[in-house]
């Protein structure tokens, strides 16, 4: 059971700790600076914080003393003379490589690209095979002006098997550590696309893609127009129609050991991105999406307009603690798998990401 949370917000990083059963803000870092993504590497304890400075660009900070002090390290950057003049505008996700790859960090960016560092972030290289897939030219912005790699799932059984989610650009799989990629969206559909392109990879807006760590063939996707589940390692996807009260949303987390359990935070729909009936709820399935519980205990049930961004719902290693931060600066924690929630903070800046560590 984890006793610490890092929260990345529009105006800084907040370090939340549980002492004697109470969660409090223990420290604030980078006050005033937007934090787009956080990572604590369980292999060595190193913390990473990605900044999206409004004027001065993307920056990456690293701490090797549990967040006490931070050092700026190089941020991923496109090679000079990249044909379409690309420049990293946002670090969208950070994930560790495999257990046998110390110091390896994968980074997804806007525009939609994947970078790899093999040395704790000291140097980065663009994954050119993914950047060069012909379909990338047709990827589109999903909430941002340009497409972004929003999710990276490194298979715990084989670190060379990686599945990424692109918003908007589908699901892509490599079996050889990133040397080659194939789209894998069989079963997904895009209601918003021209009919001929309804099933095209580039049309699939995968807001968030997650994997059950102990059953990695089970994956969940919160897509722009619904929820999809795969039980064959993303080779095929089943439309989840049972989710309540709506199928739109951004965030999803998978239980660390139970492949039938996952949590979502639905919103009305894409053109009205607020909770259904202004009542914030979490949708949980414990039976592989055959049914969903709508969890409300401790969450605001009237005039709540909080949206939970795709990286702002987190689960701890035990599967009992969840945390979520909202666009209106609320932070809730559940210590019983979502059955009830406690508001830990109510006046934070808009929350971009939440991570247990």
């Amino acid at each position, binding site marked *: 059971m984890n006793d610490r949370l890092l929260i990345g917000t529009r105006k800084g990083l907040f370090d939340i700790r549980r002492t004697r059963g109470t969660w409090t803000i223990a420290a604030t870092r980078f006050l005033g600076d937007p934090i787009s993504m956080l990572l604590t590497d369980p292999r060595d304890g190193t913390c990473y914080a990605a900044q999206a*400075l409004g*004027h*001065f660009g993307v*920056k990456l900070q690293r701490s090797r003393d549990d967040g006490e002090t931070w050092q700026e390290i190089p941020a991923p950057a496109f090679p000079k003379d990249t044909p379409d003049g690309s420049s990293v505008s946002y670090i969208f996700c950070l994930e560790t490589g495999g257990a046998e790859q110390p110091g390896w960090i994968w980074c997804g960016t806007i525009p939609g690209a994947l970078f790899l560092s093999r040395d704790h972030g000291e140097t980065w290289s663009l994954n050119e095979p993914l950047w060069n897939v012909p379909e990338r030219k047709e990827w589109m912005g999903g909430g941002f002006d340009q497409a972004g790699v929003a999710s990276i799932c490194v298979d715990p059984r084989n670190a060379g098997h990686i599945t990424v989610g692109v918003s908007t650009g589908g699901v892509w799989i490599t079996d050889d550590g990133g040397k080659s990629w194939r789209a894998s969206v069989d079963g997904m559909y895009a209601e918003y696309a021209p009919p001929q392109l309804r099933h095209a990879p580039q049309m699939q807006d995968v807001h968030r893609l997650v994997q059950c760590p102990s059953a990695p063939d089970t994956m969940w996707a919160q897509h722009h127009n619904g929820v999809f589940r795969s039980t064959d390692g993303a080779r095929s996807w089943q439309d989840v129609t049972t989710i309540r009260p709506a199928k739109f949303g951004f965030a999803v987390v998978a239980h660390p050991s139970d492949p039938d359990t996952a949590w979502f935070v639905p919103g009305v729909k894409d053109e009205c991105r607020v909770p259904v009936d202004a009542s914030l709820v979490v949708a949980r399935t414990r039976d592989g999406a055959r049914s969903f519980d709508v969890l409300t205990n401790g969450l605001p049930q009237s005039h709540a307009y909080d949206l939970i961004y795709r990286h702002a719902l987190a689960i701890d290693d035990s599967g009992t603690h969840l945390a979520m931060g909202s666009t209106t600066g609320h932070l809730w924690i559940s210590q019983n798998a979502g059955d009830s929630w406690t508001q830990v903070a109510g006046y934070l800046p808009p929350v971009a990401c939440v991570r247990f560590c």
Partner: protein
Amino acid sequence: MARVAFTANLERHLACPVQSAPGDCVRAVLDNVFATHPRLRSYLLDDQGRVRRHVSIYVNADHIADRDRLSDPVNDDDEVFVFQALSGG
């Protein structure tokens, strides 16, 4: 050598004192600054070496015209002033 000054807002992130640097255009002047302050480059320029969208550079009272190649001429008695645009905060 041109005098190069930076918005005080940059000091929140890294040291960038007023300094003198040689060069006959903005690119050359800044490259000389970056030679001694390498971290500064990514704060002012994007991955392709263009001025970041929300950074402004003036030579004396004139906003530079070439934000991609930074070819605007600079004379020895000029001041290059770098500040954050009012957009983009």
